[in-house]
């Protein structure tokens, strides 16, 4: 666990650190954080339980338990990582362990959105790139990696590889607007206009006053 590192805040343009690998397609959020750890009213203690059952099964040889991976912050995964449940506890557990960016072939839709909402970029890369990166990370102990959101590159001191982040999320990360609450609240006039145009909020009748209490 990398507790010294502060949680994401504001503009996110570069993530520097060590990489760590989880191999396999369709790693679901139940595996990232089993449901029994969701019995909590705060996210605080999730970090130590990330991949709890997989780690127990592998008795210390899981990559999140290896000494050389301590302090890693960039996670390299395969296809459809984070599929399944909408639990934000999954990216929260990864973040609280120390992960600050994830690079993979593809991601579960809701997981991807949850990562963005807490300032963790999910970058995609071609299958060949992922497998090359995973090989390098597993083979040697090159600890100096940089994920550059401006150049869309993941680099070590020898080579750069192309990654991709969709325009919308990229803009939000680079401008520090990934914490959307204030921005959404800012458009309240437009929101009220939208509400006033919706038939189901006004008895399906044009010109009729809004129903005051639907539920």
């Amino acid at each position: 666990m990398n507790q010294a590192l502060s949680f994401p805040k504001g503009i996110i343009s570069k993530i520097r650190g060590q990489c760590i690998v989880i191999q396999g397609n369709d790693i679901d959020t139940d595996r990232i954080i089993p449901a029994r750890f969701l019995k909590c009213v705060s996210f605080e203690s999730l970090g130590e339980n990330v991949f709890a059952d997989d780690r127990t099964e592998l008795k210390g040889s899981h990559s999140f338990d290896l000494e050389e991976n301590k302090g890693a912050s960039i996670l390299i995964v395969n296809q459809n990582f984070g599929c399944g449940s909408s639990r934000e506890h999954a990216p929260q557990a990864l973040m609280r362990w120390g992960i600050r960016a994830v690079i993979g072939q593809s991601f579960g839709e809701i997981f991807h959105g949850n990562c963005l909402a807490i300032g963790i970029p999910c970058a995609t890369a071609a299958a060949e790139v992922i497998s090359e990166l995973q090989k390098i990370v597993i083979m040697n102990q090159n600890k100096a990696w940089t994920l550059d959101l401006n150049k869309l590159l993941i680099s070590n001191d020898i080579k750069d590889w192309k990654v991709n982040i969709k325009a919308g999320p990229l803009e939000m990360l680079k401008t520090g607007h990934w914490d959307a609450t204030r921005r959404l609240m800012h458009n309240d006039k437009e929101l009220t206009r939208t509400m006033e145009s919706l038939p189901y909020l006004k008895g399906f009748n044009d010109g009729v006053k809004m129903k005051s209490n639907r539920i």
Partner: protein
Amino acid sequence: MSSGTLYDKIWDLHRVADLPGGATQLFIGLHLIHEVTSPQAFAGLQDKGLKVRCPNLTLATVDHIVPTTDQTRPFVDPLAEEMLSTLEKNCAMHGIKLHGLGSGKQGIVHVIAPELGLTQPGMTVACGDSHTSTHGAFGAIAFGIGTSQVRDVLASQSLSISKLKVRRICITGQLREGVFAKDLILHIIRKLGVKGGVGYAYEFAGPAVDNLSMEERMTICNMAIEGGARCGYFNPDEVTFQYLKGRLHSPNSEEWPRAIKWWGSLSSDRSSLFDDEVQFDAAKISPTVTWGITPGQSISIDENLPEPESLEPSESLIAKDAYKYMNLKPGKKISGLPIDVCFIGSCTNGRLSDLQDAAKVAAGRKVAKGIKAFVVPGSEQVAKSAEAQGLDNIFRQAGFEWRAPGCSMCLAMNPDRLEGQQISASSSNRNFKGRQGSAKGRTLLMSPAMVAAAAITGEVTDVRDLLPNNY
């Protein structure tokens, strides 16, 4: 890019603003919350000193952690008690209606909103639960969100979200006797893959859907997310309108004619453009059972378990992992596999018609020796209707336990769970490693009728062999 579809129409109606970078600010017409994914969202609200924007468009219930045996407060599990009391406190503080235990309206969030008439065509629905896709059965756009987004919806009644592509899944033919909506959606996920729907909303359409009931449509949309599609929907029709008529929150008789006129106008136009189209023949589908660790790893009851090498290269590795975890061998049939636990319930298959289908199989028979079998109605209303029809007695006499409503062993956040390497026949939605509460527990997903059949014989069984008029 799609155009003229129900998805496009609802999207446009709810678009508040375009956000920098291309995301849309989308108004949310119905926000459902529960005890697991909301406490941190309320805490976030408090940190920022914010209020709930539209408490009257927000509804809470408790489902994930509730015990299905003794529901006396405080719960035996202090963590579960803390979660429910936190939800009660938050709802009271922010003026949000909570359908709590014993209210007559409590139940799994995706079961109660439809049965109360809250979920309606043309709405946007969000909930901190991936199976929110269920509500698309009504011709709504409904999707699961994470806790930070729950906070955003609480604060602003809207979300920052990017538009999905739309894939039309055209279903022809009719499901045969003994084959259910669950088999259809398991088959679709098997064919399109668990990643196939990533980036898409699924429109379920075609000549076969007219004959699907609302509860069948809910089962299908519920599992869209298991195929990677965050959102699945049906176009609203007469079946939808009939279901909604007279429900607690449905439009009243004065509003009704205007409501159905508007709802009818939302359906995808004949000239709609889709990003992709695929077709399935429902008549060719047999009872389907998962054998692996993703909902896409399934086979027909009469097929042999696949050789990993016969699958797509991207699937063969996880198939090998699945065989090891499940302790199964390729080449054999799934029927005849001994079962330990049978679970009927969940937001996928915990509605009245699901219990009726299972009861038909259980009636006059006995659960096999050594099998633990239990039925968990999806809501207090489902339980009440089932009991009025005597289904509880049918199940009890057959040796099933009849429990109180909740999510139960679908994800085992309450005391209901597998132990050790136990193997379950389950009417729920996920067979992930460890999903049902034991790190080594194994799950076979199937229709509620198939679960009942497995309970009776003690092994995976073709339910058609146990139905009247054997054919």
